């Protein structure tokens, strides 16, 4: 035991020392779990000599909590989703990228160059985008699935076999689409109806689960699962006979973005990394890994051809519009929290 202690103390001293040695040419990235292939980071290090340290989080909100609890000043870049970019900007957590600081800014696809959540791309660049809807096991149900009714007023065959994401934003946005009311509605009657509808719908749900959203579909435990497009594709590749729906009422769209954090300790390196990710070849490597979509022009030739052909990536003609999750004001958010608590009490 004594020897073990000694050797681990030595190792500890060693790891502290090696941390100090790498102080130059560093970049600290705060990123989602399993969303950045190691090869891409290695390429960046090989090209620039900058060493990348990556720390990971499991939700937009837990990233925000860590930053607000004192994580600012440690990280250079983070990768928040669309609505989280505007929240972080509102909280004053983002730094502004001046004109000309990003050489490759022109590579951003025109439709993503001025998004509502970050006008003019003042602090962010696109990372990946996709959609959140639901997938249905075709062995369990053969009827029409292109309606949000599958989740909220399911046919008898599917009742009790539905898994929802355990995430307020995605469930509420989908529910608003189902009822045809605006997100963050302040109309009291609409909100009451939304509350009542969810209470009713919950009777038909088996579980709330984000961690194993894909597994429950593959194993057949759930016949319907609210899920991201890339996840649905993976479930299908793993042998589940699932079809991803694009409801006529609309579906949730999302976009993750690389943002420059305020007080970034290695600001210049962070900008270099953003430029690096704006080169089609590099961001295509991310897309091939994560199986979503890039927001950069000229990326197509580097993509895995099978990816573009996936049914999950190609909405049918009658599909509704994709909508981003809206950021509610404080008062409305309080009502939303109350509805969510009612739903899960």
């Amino acid at each position, binding site marked *: 035991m004594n020897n073990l*202690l000694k050797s681990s103390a030595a190792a500890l001293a060693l790891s*502290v020392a090696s941390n100090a040695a790498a102080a130059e040419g560093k970049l600290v990235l705060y990123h989602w779990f*399993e969303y950045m292939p190691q090869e891409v980071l290695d390429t960046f290090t090989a090209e620039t000599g900058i060493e990348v340290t*990556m*720390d990971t989080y499991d939700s937009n909100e837990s990233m925000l909590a860590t930053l607000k609890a004192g994580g600012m000043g440690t990280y250079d870049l983070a990768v928040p989703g669309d609505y989280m970019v505007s929240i972080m900007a509102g909280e004053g957590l983002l730094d502004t990228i001046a004109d000309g600081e990003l050489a490759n800014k022109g590579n951003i696809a025109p439709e993503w160059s001025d998004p509502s959540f970050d006008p003019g791309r003042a602090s962010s660049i696109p990372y990946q985008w996709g959609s959140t809807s639901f997938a249905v096991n075709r062995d369990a149900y053969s009827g029409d699935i292109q309606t949000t009714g599958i989740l909220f007023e399911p046919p008898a065959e599917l009742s009790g076999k539905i898994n929802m994401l355990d995430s307020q934003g995605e469930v509420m946005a989908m529910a608003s689409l189902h009822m045809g009311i605006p997100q963050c509605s302040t109309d009291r009657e609409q909100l009451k109806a939304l509350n009542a509808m969810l209470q009713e719908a919950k009777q038909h749900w088996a579980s709330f689960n984000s961690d194993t959203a894909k597994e429950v579909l593959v194993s057949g435990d759930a016949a319907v699962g609210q899920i991201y497009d890339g*996840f649905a594709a993976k479930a299908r590749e*793993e*042998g589940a006979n699932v079809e991803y729906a694009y409801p006529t009422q609309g579906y949730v769209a999302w976009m993750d973005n690389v943002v420059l954090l305020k007080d970034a300790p290695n600001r210049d390196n962070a900008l270099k990394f953003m430029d690096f990710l704006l080169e089609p070849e590099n961001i295509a490597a991310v897309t091939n890994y994560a199986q979503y979509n890039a927001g950069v022009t000229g990326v197509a030739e580097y993509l895995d051809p099978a990816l573009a052909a996936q049914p999950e990536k190609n909405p049918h003609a009658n599909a509704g519009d994709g909508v981003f999750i809206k950021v509610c004001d404080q008062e409305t958010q309080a009502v939303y929290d109350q509805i969510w608590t009612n739903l899960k009490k």
Partner: protein
Amino acid sequence: MAHVNENIKTYKGFRTITLFCLVVLYAPLVIVTIYSFNASQSITNWEGLSLRWYADVFTGPESAKFKTAAFNSFTIAIMAATASTMIATLAATAMVRGGQFRLRTVSFGLISLPLMVPEIVTAVATLIFFNAIGFTRGYLTILVAHIAFCIPFAYLPISARMQGIEDSFEQAAMDLYATRRQAFTRILMPLMAPGIISGFLLAFIVSLDDFIITNFVKGAGVETLPTAIFGSVKQGIKPNIMAISTMLLSVSIVMVTISYFVSKSDSTK
């Protein structure tokens, strides 16, 4: 101890329950082991035997991450369990052998405190606290946090054991001119061994398994096994995680087997 008739000691059915207990504990791990050899990406569909996930753990792009994560996890778990067991043993001696005193109840409350606060609260609070007192997040902050929250897990079995040992043994030794220190190390400690081992093992598995607190206090680039594994789990559990788990199991089972044969040869001497 006087030899007691085995019939009086044993209870019918206890053996069955123990075996049932082992089945419950190990059945999920059998699944883990089987699927670590699965050729497919999926954890629920069997597509034939393969060693690719074991190769992936050692040569895949994340092999370096897993290696340091395993190293961090084990060094932290061993150090945290050792430190918290020592602290808990001293505390238990004061609480069980220190007579009645006013702060006894308060001390017990303080020692149990890490159990009572949900982990997420400890995690956020500790992060804010470390920032407030100017600690930089890293290996050391994980270690300190682990030592603190492992204390009650070590303390409770240790103090329960000590309550079962009459102090007449130590008193007798001291009557025979043993110093109190000698009575402590030569009489009390050997009698305490099963309690201390239990406490150490509980602290060890608590530290080894902690995700929530570690993830908040660890800082950039420092990973432990749970934080490294959790990432993969969030994107669907990949069989390479199963492979890592199976290897951990094998290592521990080999250790137990060795200790079994060592103890067996000891007793035949």
